[in-house]
């Protein structure tokens, strides 16, 4: 009788709670590789989030815009559509308007938008800046304050601005997305720096996502190696759940703009690949891509 070679790991990926109350979503907590229900425990299904912008999208393919085209001028309505019509359990509000090279909206105003969304919907919320360190810092600190106690997930927190943002997140009870660029060593380094003062169970790591055809396999392998360093090598600084922000990357490709089917599959394939590597939280742009993944994995 063949004995299946099962593997057991002695540690767990940390569990991170997003949001509050009965709609709160837990991610992480697993003690085995993704979908390995046959040899370990995965208490929490991956978090699947839908993206919302705080301004009207520019240059989106028609079919990317269609699900929300009549509500894109109002982030609250957009968010509601995502939850009520498309069944999103987590939302990701991307504050594109704060881009200093774009509309350069002030921190207070951006924070107000976030607060409006929070007030209108009781649902776990991810809030992302644009990756410009100084501006993101100011905005996310203001968002933290304006939504104190709401347990948002704020990011991206970077090597250049983690001190201020994490401090504000700690003070106001939020979790953070720690982002390093495609490098397990840098991921570890940022975690070490953060964990000097910030609780590890409120950190989610983002190794930076690339779309199918544009570097997806680099992200895939980094996520797989992060899981290995955590579960197999038991590296305490690599046991955070993994975040993958894929909608924005996939839909900027020319392939996604060629047809609706190809676009949705471009995003769904990228998402599926990262989930197979071990991503615990994925942000989608198209509700059909999200639904497709949800049906396959749940």
């Amino acid at each position, binding site marked *: 009788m*063949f004995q*299946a*070679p*099962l593997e057991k790991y002695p540690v767990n990926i940390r569990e991170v709670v997003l949001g509050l109350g009965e709609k709160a979503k837990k991610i992480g907590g697993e003690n085995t590789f993704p979908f390995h229900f046959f040899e370990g425990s995965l208490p929490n299904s991956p978090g699947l989030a839908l993206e919302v912008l705080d301004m009207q999208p520019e240059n989106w393919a028609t079919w990317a815009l269609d699900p929300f085209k009549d509500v894109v001028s109002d982030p609250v309505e957009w968010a509601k559509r995502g939850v009520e019509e498309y069944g999103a359990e987590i939302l990701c509000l991307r504050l594109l308007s704060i881009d200093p090279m774009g509309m350069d909206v002030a921190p207070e105003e951006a924070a107000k938008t976030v607060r409006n969304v929070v007030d209108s919907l009781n649902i776990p919320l991810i809030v992302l800046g644009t990756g410009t360190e100084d501006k993101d810092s100011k905005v996310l600190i203001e968002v933290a304050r304006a939504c104190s106690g709401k347990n948002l997930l704020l990011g991206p927190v970077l090597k250049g601005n983690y001190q201020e943002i994490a401090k504000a997140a700690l003070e106001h009870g939020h979790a953070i997305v720690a982002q390093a660029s495609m490098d397990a060593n840098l991921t570890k380094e940022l975690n070490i720096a953060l964990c000097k003062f910030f609780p590890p169970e409120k950190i989610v790591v983002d190794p930076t996502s690339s779309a199918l055809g544009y*570097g997806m396999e680099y992200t895939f392998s980094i996520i797989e190696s992060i899981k290995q360093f955590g579960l197999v090598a038991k590296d305490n600084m690599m046991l955070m759940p993994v975040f993958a922000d894929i909608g924005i990357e996939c839909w900027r490709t020319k392939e996604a703009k060629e047809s609706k089917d190809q676009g949705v599959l471009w995003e769904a394939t990228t998402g599926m690949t990262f989930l197979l590597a071990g991503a615990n939280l994925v942000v989608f742009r198209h509700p059909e891509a999200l639904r497709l993944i949800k049906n*396959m*994995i749940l």
Partner: protein
Amino acid sequence: MALKGAEIMKKLPKTNCKECGCATCFAFAMKLATGGVKLDDCPYLDPEVKTELKDAMAPPMKLVTIGTGQNAIVIGEEEVMFRHEKTFFHEPGIAVLISDRESESDIGEKLARVKDLRFERIGNVLKIDLLALSNDSGDSGIFETLVKKAYETTDFPFILISEDMDALFSAAAMCADRRPLVYPITSDNVSASIPKLKELGVPAGVKGDSLDEIISVTSQLKDAGVEESIIDPGSRNMLDGIRDQTLIRRAALKKGFRPLGYPTMTFPCFMCQDKYEEALATSALMTKYAGIVVTSLIEKDFIFPLLVHRFNIYSDPRRPMTVEEKVYEVSQPDENSPILISTNYALDFFIVSGAIEEANIPAFLCIKDTGGIGVLAAWTSGKFTGEAIAEFFKKYDVENRVKHRKLIIPGVAKKLKDELEEELPSWEILLGPSEASDIPKFLSEEWKV
């Protein structure tokens, strides 16, 4: 090779006699480990030791070929569970399924469409590799007609599928010169199949309802001298498929368990009801170890992402991915647009061209072939020097694309600025940002015609 040089060394005479052509036994062991010499080259090996070494050195997963010549599909001989541990070696074969129950015209159309599913991406050809021809009609004559038509109008290798052994092997005999895979070989038909498999010299597609059953069949085949098998654990859905594929590969690679030391095949076409789910299941199984995926999909929008996905996952992480050397036009530049230059390392290319697009300022991006290595390393090894770039300018007629004479170079390449000022005296060399993410800012603030 499964054995490391140092382990092989333990079994050698250690006399350093040099009769094998190597200076020391250690050298011989190293060359053996990487396939540079043959075991037979050592005249002093005990025959028992030789057999022991030959078995131990055999790769933990068999290499199997379907098809012949330049259309042959080669799968197996994988060495790792995770591509970052080394690399995945052989891309899975993607087979389009055609049933003999389909109408003649549908079949004709499908065959034509599959041939068209061919695309080029950064210098590589991505395409469908196999046809899976299925005897669903129950009629061996109809099956043969399908196989004959596919054989005459295409040059794909085949996976022949039939529950009727006679129909299966008769079809196989018809196209034996293209070395088809015959499926399914099960515990019920294995004894009767063996003589036919050996006669035709074709690989066996083994199916079992359990791993124990598969093990029994592959063992019988191996004992009888049928070396090449591909195994189907009969997974019913994607998650089961992931489990089965993982356990089989682990058994082969980590336990050295020979009866499961074969590449695998999966049928995502039977796992899902809707074509979107099928596309996802297919890509998931390719990521998770499947050697062959059989799909019912033939539309470009569904197949193209799968082909790119396979290409990405099976790229060698140890070798930098490269893009074609040329002058790329980002966002339709004109004669007043800025010119930037960088190396052909793919990831850098995506980041830099992405940053330029984000800046919304049309530009020319000159990409110089440096074998995929980055700016500084390429400069040091002479591939990205002033001279090399001046040659590029001539070759691609850069001067005639713009009215101005300004070139933006990567900020880290300070040494390059002096060299270029000498090689291209009529050009002003601007040192760009060190980080690609600063390109939008640089272009909007610092670029003026």
